[in-house]
């Protein structure tokens, strides 16, 4: 039973990340996932210190606040004329450093495992269950990831047109009166929430993998946003299932194996995608050459 829970949780995390990752990629902000996932660390520590417990809710709020704070700092720096990559690295490294310093300052009070924050351990997910009205409802992490996914689905469904327009042509969106900044921060908020819901299980850095790799794979396979969103969710699920069995086979970290599968799928798409693939394009060119 526990393996089913792990696969299910992994699939939910992977698909909710992949779903939002599509928009990040289209907006050329893929590394923002990396920045957010690092900068939530001080938020988690502060929430832990303030609430004095490992209650998920305060941690969730703290992390989401710092995730948003990071995107706001990045935007402010960029508005001051700082180069985009510099703005990003300066803000997230500083926030991450503050997080580590907070942990080392309050070592006695904080029994947060740094390794766990960074690598995550999805294998422990089934043991931390959520009981509601005395009924065991399954792993808490699964419900968290599921709720985050549902929230992003609802938001994107409601504002699909706006998200699409701001992703592809922000200038046009601005001209026709779409509040571009609002949708930027809405997306950032959703990414923060999803990152926070996922990092416990797959770790801060592998959230980045789930955000970017399936979406990038889908990006190579299609030219339509709707199809890309669906494909990336599907790829995320495949990563979870295959990653779990690979990890059993190799006796290694499940999250790591999920990433490896995602990387492998991307490599396949990179080489053999019907229109974009390197090998397919070479094949088409060769066929054309023999035709003429």
């Amino acid at each position: 039973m526990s393996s089913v829970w792990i696969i299910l949780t992994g699939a939910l995390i992977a698909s909710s990340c992949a779903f939002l990752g599509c928009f990040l990629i289209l907006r050329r902000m893929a590394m923002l996932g990396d920045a957010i996932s690092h900068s939530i660390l001080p938020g988690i520590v502060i929430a832990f210190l303030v609430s004095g417990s490992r209650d998920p809710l305060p941690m969730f709020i703290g992390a989401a606040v710092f995730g948003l704070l990071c995107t706001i700092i990045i935007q402010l720096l960029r508005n001051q004329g700082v180069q985009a990559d510099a703005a990003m690295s300066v803000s997230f490294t500083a926030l991450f450093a503050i997080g580590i310093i907070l942990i080392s300052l309050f070592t006695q009070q904080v029994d947060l495992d740094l390794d766990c924050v960074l690598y995550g351990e999805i294998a422990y997910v089934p043991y931390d269950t959520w009981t509601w009205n005395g009924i065991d409802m399954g792993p808490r992490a699964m419900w968290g990831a599921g709720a985050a996914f549902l929230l992003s689905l609802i938001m994107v469904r409601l504002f699909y047109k706006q998200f699409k327009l701001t992703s592809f042509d922000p200038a046009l969106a601005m001209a026709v009166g779409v509040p571009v900044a609002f949708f930027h921060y809405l997306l950032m908020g959703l990414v923060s929430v999803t990152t926070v819901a996922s990092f416990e299980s797959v770790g801060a850095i592998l959230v980045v993998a789930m955000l970017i790799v399936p979406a990038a794979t889908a990006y190579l396979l299609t030219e339509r946003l709707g199809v890309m969103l669906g494909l990336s969710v599907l790829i995320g699920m495949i990563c979870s299932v295959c990653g779990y069995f690979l990890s059993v086979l190799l006796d290694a970290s499940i999250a790591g194996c999920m990433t490896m599968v995602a990387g492998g799928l991307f490599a396949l798409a990179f080489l053999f995608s019907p229109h974009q693939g390197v090998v397919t394009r070479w094949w088409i060119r060769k066929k054309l050459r023999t035709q003429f």
Partner: protein
Amino acid sequence: MLELFRDANALWVLAGTTLLGISSGVLGSFAFLRKRGLMGDVLAHSALPGICLAFLFTGSKNPLWLLIGATFTGLLASLFLSWITRFSKIKEDTALGLVLSTFFGVGIVLLTQIQHSDFGNQAGLDKFLFGQSASLVGTDVAIMGSISFVLILLASIFFKELKLLCFDANYGKSLGFPMVGLDFFLMLLLVVAVVIGLQAAGVVLMASLLITPASTARYWTERLDHMIIISACIGALSGLVGTILSSVATKLSTGPLIVLAVTLLFFISMLCAPKRGLIAKSLRLIQTRAKVRQEQIYVAWNQLGSKTITLSALSQQSHLSTTQVHRWIKQKKRTGQVVENSQGTFTLSDASWKEASDTALLGLYMEMWHMYEDIETDCSIQDIEQLSDLPESLRVQLQSYLQKHISEEDRAKAYHSTRRAGM
């Protein structure tokens, strides 16, 4: 704090972090100018599988083997990065995140495999990634120092080529320099700089040490050679400050303190830098606004044609609100350039009247200059601030154009008025 300088080990750590700051400051400048700031992050993460592989193959934790392994996967990562952006429609930022996370994922798989198998002495392998500068010993610093020295030497030998690569790669190509090779060479230097830093500083710190000193230095200068020197100094300074602070407050680890020190320097520079800093910029903005307002009011006063005028007439003529004009007049009353009369009118002093007519005339001359671009002269239109800046010959030329223009305008006006009268 004095004890720090007596303790031999602490001195090694100090030397190590300072050297690290210098070499990453120098190479970070090139990465910054190539807009590859996030490269440090990617290379640092992609070192993990290399470290694990080196350990799997050699079974030892000899830093040299681990360095070689990390360099190997770092280079592989940068190769993948350039392939992905070159052979598909995937953009640079996505490729960065893709390579970073996939390499790190592979690294974690290898790491957990090592942990689950029977290698007894694997403990501390992951510490390679989070940095442990407090435990640096003499041999580590010696390796780090000598490699840093070689890196700085190589960067200075190939300074000219790297400069070309950063600013105008296409021009370099046309000159016959192997730009792709140079790019790979810069990548190699960066990989090595990141890898030697990892042990002392950890992944996140390396990302910060590579980019933040360079972007800080960018605020202070417009020249590459100065920028590199400043960036190296900032890297060294933050290494020093971070190490000293962490030896004072023993609970805090060195890496994050160095990051905070360098970030603090960055924000200070962003505020206070002489030309590009925020304070200097806003001061300049205020000055320019005041100058433009003065010109506007002078021109309006001149157009009214009388030294003594009312406030409302001036505000109407200059298209400024009465409060704006009033504020300006108050300032000028203090310096005596404007005198308030008893009837509520204002009189401009003689010197300022001359200044006002000069400003108005200069405005007309400049209009002529913009209209007739074929005017032959040595000076550039941007250099002219006052009427006296105009050379005599140019002034005569502009004068004649202006006269011609005015007489044409008059003729047109006269023509229109006669037509209207004729109707």
